[in-house]
């Protein structure tokens, strides 16, 4: 998996064939639209000329122009359909690539267990990925088509008469390059500012909204609401400025096109006078320049789209810039029986007011350590340090006499954090995340260990019971035990369990504890629990 930051330039590279097809089809479609108009104009003018000289009318070959007109009409129709399919196909493929790639990147990061707001961060991540396809669809494609078509039309004018192309050139340059570029510099900046303001105002609103009742009570809601509406208005005005810029750019482009049209007419008159050009060809030339509007006007919004893509790219790169997983390097696993030694260990969660201070303890295989202490004292923090989470700490932590970095922690440590993840899949799928090869018997065994087997047997779908988003279809205590069962399936020797018994009644707690104790000889078990648990020969540690 590539660790490169996302670059807009490379977005088209992975599906170059599909994008090329879409770009080609789009150009052909636009060309047919112009061709249809120009040929029709030429045809009726030439027919009129021939008709006026009645003799010529019978010799006039109307089959070929009629066929060309029909050809352009069909190509334009079919081309538009095919282009839309091709470009959507390419965009969806890009979306798929990006999602897969970003998932691997974000999920592979070594980060602390995400905080409550992370749902919103995820939402933004998904939205940002969608913004990235603005770049090929709304920036690259319009520029490609506008450039190809402008050059083709200019070339065709030059074929008619070089001076005609020169006459049209200033206006076309304005509409094609000068005006869009001028607007573009401002547009990209506005689009980036847009994202900033939008984020600020979202934060502000969400913060206030969760305090709504209190703010009302404290008579502070009115001024907070006014403050939000002010921010909202600032953002709306900013949006309006963007839209205005796009409209102004389009206005400038149309004036450029008008200049080109007038120049073609003015100079065309001179050419007609010299007999260098005939009236039908002049009309065809004029209609081609007019038809360019369809290709040129989408450029007006292209830089806003570019700005949005750039802002999304920056946010995604920022999100994925964090240090990636280091744990993959060490592969050693302890060969003798396990020991864990902590000496003078202190740690803090980022921004926490307190945490474990100067903890020292030595544990051997077969030990069960119970960590106790008041809430907020840092028990969970200590467990995170033991789990090898990326948390700043001082002091020493050794497994079998070696530092953590020496070991392949992924095979060694089974950690049940307080905040756990149940996925929107079936129970069996959730459990098999720990061991894809696990047999049904093995699943039943661990379910029995966490006193859930009876409950599962009572469900209509048994192991295939779905658990719902966020494990919504099971209670908190059940979710905790499912997560524990999943962890037990990994058969890791060092188990770190944060509140494994929360939400369980006495009997269930005793059953789960008993099955945990059956495993004590296979390694070391560390348990943080508010409940009093009776473990024979347990070690105890008080934190906070």
């Amino acid at each position: 998996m590539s660790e490169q930051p996302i670059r807009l330039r490379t977005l088209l590279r992975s599906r170059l064939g599909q994008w090329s097809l879409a770009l080609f089809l789009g150009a052909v479609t636009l060309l047919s639209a112009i061709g249809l108009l120009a040929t029709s104009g030429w045809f009726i003018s030439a027919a009129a000329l021939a008709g006026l000289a009645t003799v010529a009318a019978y010799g006039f070959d109307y089959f070929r122009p009629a066929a060309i007109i029909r050809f352009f009409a069909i190509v334009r129709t079919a081309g538009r359909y095919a282009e839309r399919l091709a470009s959507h196909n390419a965009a969806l493929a890009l979306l798929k690539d990006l999602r897969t790639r970003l998932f691997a990147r974000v999920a592979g990061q070594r980060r602390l267990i995400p905080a409550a707001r992370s749902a919103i961060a995820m939402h933004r991540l998904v939205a940002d990925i969608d913004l990235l396809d603005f770049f090929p669809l709304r920036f690259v494609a319009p520029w490609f088509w506008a450039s190809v078509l402008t050059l083709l039309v200019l070339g065709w004018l030059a074929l008619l008469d070089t001076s005609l192309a020169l006459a049209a050139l200033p206006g076309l340059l304005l509409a094609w390059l000068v005006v869009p570029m001028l607007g573009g510099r401002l547009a990209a900046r506005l689009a980036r500012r847009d994202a900033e303001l939008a984020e600020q105002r979202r934060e502000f609103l969400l913060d206030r909204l969760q305090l709504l009742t209190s703010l009302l009570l404290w008579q502070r809601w009115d001024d907070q609401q006014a403050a939000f509406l002010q921010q909202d208005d600032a953002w709306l005005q900013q949006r309006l400025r963007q839209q205005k810029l796009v409209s102004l750019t389009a206005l400038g482009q149309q004036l450029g096109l008008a200049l080109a049209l007038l120049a073609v007419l003015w100079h065309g008159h001179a050419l007609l006078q010299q007999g260098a050009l005939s009236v039908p060809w002049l009309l065809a030339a004029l209609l081609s320049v007019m038809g360019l509007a369809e290709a040129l006007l989408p450029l007006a919004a292209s830089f806003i789209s570019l700005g949005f893509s750039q802002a999304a790219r920056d946010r995604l790169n920022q999100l994925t810039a964090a240090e990636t997983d280091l744990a993959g390097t060490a592969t050693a696993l302890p060969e003798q029986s396990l020991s864990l030694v902590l000496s003078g260990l202190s740690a803090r969660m980022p921004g926490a007011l307190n945490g474990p201070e100067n903890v020292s303890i030595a544990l051997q295989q077969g030990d069960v350590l119970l960590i106790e202490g008041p809430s907020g004292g840092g028990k969970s923090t200590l467990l995170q340090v033991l789990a090898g989470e990326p948390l700043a700490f001082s002091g020493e932590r050794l497994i079998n006499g070696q530092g953590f970095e020496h070991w392949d922690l992924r095979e060694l440590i089974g950690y049940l954090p307080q905040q756990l993840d149940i996925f929107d899949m079936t129970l069996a799928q959730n459990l098999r995340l720990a061991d894809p090869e696990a047999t049904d018997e093995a699943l039943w065994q661990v379910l029995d260990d966490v006193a859930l087997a009876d409950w599962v047997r009572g469900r209509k779908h048994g192991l295939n019971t779905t658990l719902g988003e966020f494990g919504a279809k099971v209670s908190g205590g059940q979710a905790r035990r499912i997560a524990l069962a999943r962890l037990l399936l990994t058969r890791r020797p060092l188990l770190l369990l944060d509140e494994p018994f929360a939400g369980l009644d006495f009997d269930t707690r005793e059953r789960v504890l008993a099955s945990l104790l059956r495993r004590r000889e296979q390694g070391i078990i560390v348990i943080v629990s508010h409940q009093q648990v009776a473990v024979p020969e347990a070690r105890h540690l008080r934190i906070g």
Partner: protein
Amino acid sequence: MAMSVKKIKSTEIDSRTASGWLTRLLAPQASLLNLALLFALAAAGLFVWQCWLLAQLFSGWLVAWQQGGLGEAQAQLLGSLLPWLALCLILRPLLQYGREQASQLASLRARGELRRTLLQRLAALGPARAQLGADAELGSRLLEQVEALDGYISRYRVQRQLVLLVPLLLVVCTALFSPLAAVLLLLTAPLVPVFMILLGKAAASASQRQFVALARMSGRFSDLLRGSWTLRHLGALPAAEAGVETAAEHYRAGTMRVLRMAFLSGAVLELFASLAIALVALYLGLGLLGILPWAKGEIPVPYLGALFILLLAPEFYAPLRQLGADYHAKAEAEGAMTELLPLLNQQVWAHPGREPVRLSAAPRIDCHQLAIEGRLAPLDLRVQPAERVVLQGASGSGKSSLLEALLGFVPWQGELLINGRSLLDLSRPDWLRHVGYLAQQVPILHGSIADNLRLAAPTATDAELIAVLEQVALWPLIRQLPKGLETELGERGLGLSGGQLSRLALARLLLRDTPVWLLDEPTAHLDADTAELIHALLERLSQGRTLLLVSHDLQGLDWADRVVTLGQSEQRLEAADV
């Protein structure tokens, strides 16, 4: 699953009300939108004139060319027509610009107004907003769904009218020169409404199906991403990556199937647009040659009229094509309004009281046959001044609703008296000045500890802050911090444990020093030990106040004067918990 089924059903029932709301929302912006329409129509008129001017010019040239060359007359013709042409070419984009500005301004105002309305609704609902969804979700709706109306207001709304008016104008102009060409255009015109409906149906069903598929894919994506820590810990990342890829591929294939159909209607429209030009051109061209089968040797439409019609023809279908491109904006807006409907249609009750309230000591609270429709069965309860009452009851028995009624946020039947005066007569802001309220989630803003305390009491001095922090036993901890009171709290009080947050909330209650405290399960999220500590604190701090405390757990609450259990006879909403 059950949730989404319900959602779809309500969409069908409410779609008319959604457009009703849209109409009501846009009524104040009618003049701006009409102005936009006027600009667009003027631009269409200018287009016709521009075509007429060009036709005249080329017709003049053609005749002169035929007669052997351009002379002085043609130079004069060019000289007389070119200024007017320039005027058309400059005015049309200006009018287009004016149209965009007017409709965008209308959209901006309508969106701002809607957001203000929604905020006021939320404020009027107070704590009752919880039944409409979590705050984060409501906030997202307020921001995003309102934004989703933009395309509809600033583009679709005016285009919908143009799509009828502009083709009509062009047909009339065409008929002046060639009734048959007008008939050619008109023959396809009855298809316009048919296509609008077909297009609409296709786009709506396509976007709806796509939406469901997208939601499913995004759901899988964020579900796995949210749990990435666990996946990594379990060594299940490669499998999850494969899962994400499969879901995305599934979405791509499914969407392409839908789009193949959806784009067809667009393609048919394109075909008509092309045909309109091609047919008219062939008819006019062959006519000019005098070789039409039914009019041999005649020229039915002379060059001037023929060129004029040919120049008009491309615009005939252009408004409809534009409408097709903007159609998704309509679907998006209706979807967004449907999402907002629950909030917009929520009956909001305005507390009517006006009388001032001045309490010097803890008041007596009386409930006589107090009932809240569907939420609280009739209740008789007398809470003496400074009495401390714990409320219990099954979920759905109306504990929280009783507190909401006491805060003046929901209407009730029966009587609710404060020191013998009906709460309905009292001014709510005045009454709330005397009430301290705390729910499960401790309200914390981004900012320092001092900022958060001063939210409740803007004028409190540092000494006062320290005094209340002392009372809740937080000061010894905060004093040790390098920044003390100015320590920044993270998101939702990150850095403070649950117990510490509860203490901070109590400190804030103390700072306001109100004679009434209404506490709604303030310790539900805490572990038993910590809850007991907080309960002990409450014992000390709530003395001398009239206290109603909702709690499911009586541990450490033995100091309460009374425990009242609600809704013993009534069992409601129990099913919701199964």
